[in-house]
């Protein structure tokens, strides 16, 4: 299915969330991070952080917690042909527990390309900018979502 181009005109509302200690610990433990700055408050403070430090890929969980805030479900992509092609993070300030972040999603680019086995592949880049209470940029995440030309077994 071709990209639903009307989604490119849409803007998505800002969303707010508090960065929680328990969620940081859970994320660190799943990945097997042994660095105690993610799990032990004393260690985090000894290392100069105000609270537990989020692992580098942590903001991933906030992209689409509410479908109204996120372009992804509105792209018209067939979920069976949707791939996460690339993921980029830009780091501006340490992300620690207790911060109240505001995020906003936007589609920053789209392109179509002929697939290797024929059919069109669609690439969409969604950027999420996260700012703190002072309005300062904390992190930027960019995900490239691909709709492949055909389901894997039919290719």
């Amino acid at each position, binding site marked *: 299915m071709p990209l639903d181009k009307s989604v490119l005109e849409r803007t998505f509302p800002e969303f707010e969330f508090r960065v929680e200690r328990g969620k940081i610990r859970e994320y660190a433990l799943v*990945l*097997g*991070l042994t660095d105690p700055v993610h799990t032990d408050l004393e260690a985090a403070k000894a290392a100069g952080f105000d609270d537990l430090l989020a*692992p580098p890929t942590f903001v*991933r969980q906030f992209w689409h917690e509410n479908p109204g805030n996120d372009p992804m479900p509105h792209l018209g992509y067939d979920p069976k042909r949707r791939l996460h092609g690339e993921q980029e993070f830009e780091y501006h300030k340490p992300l620690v527990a207790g911060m109240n972040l505001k995020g906003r999603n936007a589609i920053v680019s789209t392109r179509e390309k002929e697939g290797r086995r024929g059919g069109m592949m669609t690439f969409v880049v969604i950027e999420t900018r996260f700012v703190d209470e002072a309005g300062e940029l904390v992190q930027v995440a960019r995900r490239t979502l691909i709709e492949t030309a055909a389901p*894997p077994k039919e290719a």
Partner: protein
Amino acid sequence: MTIVIEYAKWEELAEGTEQELTVGPITRTDLVRYAGASGDFNPNHHDEIYAIRAGFDKPFAHGMLQGGYLARLLSEWLGPDSFKNLKIRFSAQAWPGDMVICKARVVRQYEEAGERLVEIEASAANQRGDVLIKATATAAPRT
């Protein structure tokens, strides 16, 4: 007792310096835990019937699980707050039972605008040598 991790210092990170981390084998429990931790409940990562109907042999790992393992290697090597950017490109799926072998290498050690930086190239492969992800990062390690 508080564990303190010693991160590599910029001075020690000459071009060609390498670091490795092997994780796995990935279990289905890892996939479910990652879904819960990340909020990504795409059924391809836990629902056998859904995944098979979508054309896969079975559920497979979220790309960001391998991405997270690779970020763990970089974070525990260079320091968790040293990153300027991290860019991950996904090439192949990791399946339950697979090992994830992460490797990273300093490709550039330089100073810019008064900051001491390194550029890293990294990848994760399975036990058969198939590349799962490739990544690049810029970091300002401790000096």
